[in-house]
């Protein structure tokens, strides 16, 4: 297990290097001169040259990448063009806000999604099951940001129960969490239902029932435990979807997270922030997926690591 974990971590290195190359090249893929882009539209040619030199943009590309990576290794992601603060200082508090929102959404998606899935599977083709199937498909088809707008319309503007924007107490977290959780919730519900149906038809479940165990014990302790692996896979993949959805949810609810910040930074052409944000989010996604893979072994002791 430990050897497997170590090997998986080593295998991450080429992926992360590739991610860093792509992020590094982003600035160079833009049409036009990156130095002029950084300097802004009002800069004189001399100023542009100074900035080109200061940023090392007059060096060959491989040399620039080397410098970029050395700085990265020291935790230096450069400076914001707009505020001139260190990118890491700008990103840290916003990343925490995004993590809070995504964590809450993930928790809701897992708890509610799995409950719905189990209820559906134990009452296959009933009214409840059919209703949930339709609802989860509609959930998968609804743009998260539009759901957010509709929730604001209903609960903030019409009933005036919950705040429409900003961060603060728990009441600020409710609407954004529902908005962000919906897609993952629908996916988890569908996967749990399918996986539970597969397991419920197997013989050991009949044996458990024949032994006279209570239905609740059969479902939770026998069936669910064996239905978990595909659900965990889906949950892992939903992390990427949550990080994407966070961009939209944060925009709708003015949540001070990394997603909305990146949208603003793209519009302000603040490239160091965009590069740092993309790098941070991609790394988070990759690491969380690794943790999910390692979780398989904890949930299912039958899994042997080659």
């Amino acid at each position: 297990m430990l050897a497997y974990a170590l090997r998986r971590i080593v295998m991450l290195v080429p992926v992360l290097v590739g991610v860093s190359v792509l992020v590094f090249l982003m600035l160079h893929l833009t049409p036009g001169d990156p130095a002029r882009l950084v300097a802004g539209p009002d800069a004189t040619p001399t100023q542009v040259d100074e900035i080109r030199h200061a940023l090392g943009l007059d060096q060959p590309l491989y040399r620039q990448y080397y410098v970029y990576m050395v700085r990265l290794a020291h935790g230096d992601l450069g400076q914001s063009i707009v505020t001139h603060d260190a990118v890491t200082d700008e990103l840290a508090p916003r990343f925490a806000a995004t993590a809070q929102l995504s964590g809450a959404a993930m928790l809701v998606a897992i708890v509610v999604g799995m409950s719905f899935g189990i209820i559906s599977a134990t009452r296959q083709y009933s009214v409840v099951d059919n209703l949930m199937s339709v609802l989860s498909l509609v959930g998968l088809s609804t743009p998260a940001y539009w759901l957010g707008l509709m929730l604001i319309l209903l609960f903030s503007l019409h009933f005036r129960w919950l705040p429409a924007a900003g961060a603060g107490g728990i009441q600020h977290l409710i609407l954004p969490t529902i908005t962000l959780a919906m897609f993952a919730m629908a996916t988890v519900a569908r996967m749990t239902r399918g996986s539970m149906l597969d397991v419920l038809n197997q013989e050991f479940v009949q044996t458990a029932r024949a032994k006279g165990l209570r239905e609740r014990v059969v479902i939770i302790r026998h069936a669910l435990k064996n239905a978990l692996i595909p659900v965990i896979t889906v949950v892992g993949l939903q992390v990427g979807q949550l990080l994407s959805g966070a961009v939209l949810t944060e925009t709708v609810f003015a949540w001070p997270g990394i997603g909305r910040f990146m949208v603003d930074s793209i519009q302000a052409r603040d490239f160091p922030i965009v590069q740092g944000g993309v790098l941070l989010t991609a790394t988070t996604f990759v690491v969380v997926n690794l943790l999910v893979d390692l979780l398989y072994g904890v949930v299912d002791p039958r899994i042997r690591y080659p």
Partner: protein
Amino acid sequence: MRETGIAGTPREAGALDVLGSARRGRQRSPLARFVRNRAAGVGAAIILLIVLTALLAPVIAPDDPYHQDLAASLQGPSAGHLFGTDSLGRDVLSRVLYGGRITIPMGVAAVAIALILGVPVGLFSGYRLGWTDTLAMRLTDILLAFPSLLLAMAIMAALGVHLWTVSVAIAVTSIPLYVRLVRGEVMRLRGREFVDAARCVGVNDRTIVFRHILPNALSPIIIQASLNAALAILSVSALSFIGLGAQPPSAEWGAMLADGRSVMQVAWNVTTFPGIAIVLVVLGFNLLGDGLRDAYDPRSRR
């Protein structure tokens, strides 16, 4: 191409594909299952209906979608304006109808680009193996390491905001899915007798891959494309909503939602109706994809 590649192609015995007959099940072909599948039918009907209304928008729309009438701004739904008017007095129904002419083609274009680039890479990656495969797999690993919308945003930031860059950016995020899917299918098929037979008579790799293997791998590709279209349309409108896609005064659905957001306090209709349009189209593609998958693999459950 001389032929469509479907007729006259040796088909793997028992291959489950949407177009042919199946061995499994009670001798019911996937096509028959598809026709009987209510979900797929409803999905196809929804898509057809919305595509038709978009195509016929110039005929059936009550008003020019860009015609402003400030005297009639922010009206609720009425007989004159079924979906009401927006902040510039434009007819929301007309804009929703015309919006389908922007959002749907942009999403479909993204799927097409992803197919054109992803399928050949997957075919050769799975057929040649070796360094071609290793390179392709490592590249997809890297692309899959980015959350999709963030990758699309980064590409938009690099390439600049145009309608075509939206489709390209979204296509890039789904290319790895096609490469992986097609590669898996090729790995499954490459050892079959009909591939060996073709190789024995001296057919070159390109012909084997495109004329012999690809037709047998079409069904999962079609299913993936349908489900992918649903996601692509969501992404197109999402990028427009955050200002990195279609720009005002475009009647693109996501851009309309962004526009309506500022007047939500006084006019619920401007944000409500474009959203319903998006949900309907995406639901249509999801239903179709799910239905096709059920027809292709009878064991999978809805």
